[in-house]
């Protein structure tokens, strides 16, 4: 039986944030029992010590245990594509709204994945290795508590799959291929996330990915080139409504902002 997923209440999230600021090591432990204990202890100092820390209703019942992810955690993004698919399929009923809510994301990170997965996944980070208390608190806040699709652990995995799934409806590539490409080329993927206004459109995102694969830009994973391309497209989108263009016209516009192809060998496999 998997552990029921419940969202934190506002009070629960606030207490967790306070703990992250002054006792961040509790969030990094493999077992969340001490973290729950600390939250309960702090609750006793609230005007109403019975204030619930989690919402009463069940948000979701994971289809398979997220603990398995913790046991297979690896450093860096190398396994993100596999873990993204695993997490998404474990929580088939959660919505985009849920997975943009820091109270839901913190609940998954702290009490489903627990410290072990998050700690291992992000251990390459400079912040993870820092001795500076402020840097440690920032590290915990970023990967456990925020809602950033790039760095919050649960959000990153779920949105990687979700973006790939939605783009696959318009792309010439299947979802698994898109997922592997996006997860494997973080400098391209992170720059895409920074242009949320443009990339919110599944069709525009799919076209940008397809053309970038064809051009070789995606696999070069070059931050500067990708930035340049996305800024140029954003400038076009400021004067032209890309949403109403036909598929061919949209593709032409995107091709028009691509850098020159560097090497024919960068063509994606069929």
């Amino acid at each position: 039986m998997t552990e029921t997923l419940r969202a934190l209440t506002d009070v629960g999230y606030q207490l967790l944030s306070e703990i992250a600021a002054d006792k961040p090591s509790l969030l990094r432990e493999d077992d969340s029992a001490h973290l729950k204990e600390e939250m309960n202890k702090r609750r006793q100092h609230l005007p109403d010590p019975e204030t619930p820390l989690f919402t009463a209703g069940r948000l979701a019942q994971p289809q398979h245990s997220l603990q398995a992810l913790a046991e297979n955690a690896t450093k860096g993004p190398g396994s993100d594509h596999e873990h993204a698919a695993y997490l998404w399929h474990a929580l088939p009923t959660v919505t985009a709204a849920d997975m943009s809510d820091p109270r839901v994301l913190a609940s998954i990170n702290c009490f489903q994945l627990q410290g072990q997965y998050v700690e291992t996944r992000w251990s390459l980070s400079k912040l993870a290795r820092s001795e500076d208390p402020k840097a440690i608190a920032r590290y915990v806040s970023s990967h456990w508590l925020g809602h950033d699709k790039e760095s919050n652990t649960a959000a990153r995995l779920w949105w990687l799959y979700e973006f790939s799934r939605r783009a696959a409806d318009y792309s010439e590539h299947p979802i698994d291929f898109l997922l592997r490409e996006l997860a494997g080329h973080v400098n391209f993927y992170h720059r895409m996330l920074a242009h949320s206004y443009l990339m919110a459109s599944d069709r525009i995102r799919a076209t940008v990915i397809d053309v970038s694969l064809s051009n070789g830009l995606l696999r070069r994973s070059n931050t500067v080139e990708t930035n340049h391309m996305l800024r140029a497209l954003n400038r076009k989108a400021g004067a032209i409504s890309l949403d109403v263009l036909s598929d061919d016209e949209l593709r032409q516009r995107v091709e028009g902002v691509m850098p020159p192809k560097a090497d024919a060998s960068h063509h994606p496999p069929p």
Partner: protein
Amino acid sequence: MKYASNRNFLHPVLGQQEFLWPAKSFAPTVKVYLKQSFGKNGGPILRIETRFRLDVAAIDRLIADERAVCGVWIYCAATSYRQFFKAENNGNRRQVIADIPIGDIRGKVEAHPQVVTTTEVMLGTEEAHRVFDQEPLVLPPGTPLAVQPPTSIPLLDGDRTIKDIFSWMEDPDSGTAWDVRPDPDKATIELAADRPTMEFLKEQRETDSKWAMQTLYLAALTEALNVYLQQVGDDEQTEEDTSSSGGWVGTIKGRLAELGIRVSSDDQDPMFMAGPYGRSSTWVAQRLLGDPLQAPPPDDGEEENQ
């Protein structure tokens, strides 16, 4: 209670033989309410209903000929939701009914009513506004002919705390259903800054060309904002360029600060931030125009250089 945004916002280039610009308008009305949906997915939906009043015959013809499309696109930054909904004819008016599952949106939702070309459109000098009377105009697909500043709909926390901003009423007609409408005491539907714009437009009525220039100004300002963002991204340039570019960077910077819009600290790819979310340069430009820059468009015929 109706949450509506009515304003006149002229298209940039289409002219009228009668040349009655002040009487012509693009005036969408946006209504927002929450209701229960049925069917295979069921659950609460946010219904955004947009009705268009458009009394510019030339644009009507383009839409009828399927050379332009009238519709609304809806955007939610938090959940990366962005969909374009094409208006359907309902009797003698156009309207869009967009039903969006609550699970697809969180936080602010923007609605952008607009008319946009879908094919290349060439306007003869007799069709275009007289400020463009020198040669025919070629508009590429996707050119906005009429736009309305975004209507921003704060929807806090999806369906969990929706009760905090909406009042819930039983629907006696359907028995089991319920209909939810914004509570005027609780809801805060944010509309575009209409008043300053209308005041600004009133001041400009004497010269017809300036009405058309308003929308061109929007495009120019959007472009300027993109350049501004790039300069911010290039770090050291900002302060120096404030003086070397004749002060427009400084002017924009000051106006952004007044509107509470800041530039993100991501030095690799800065973007405009309002609240917790990134905003497009078009969105920012519309707000700047809604409360125009200190310097109005010039009085003479040099507007194209702005």
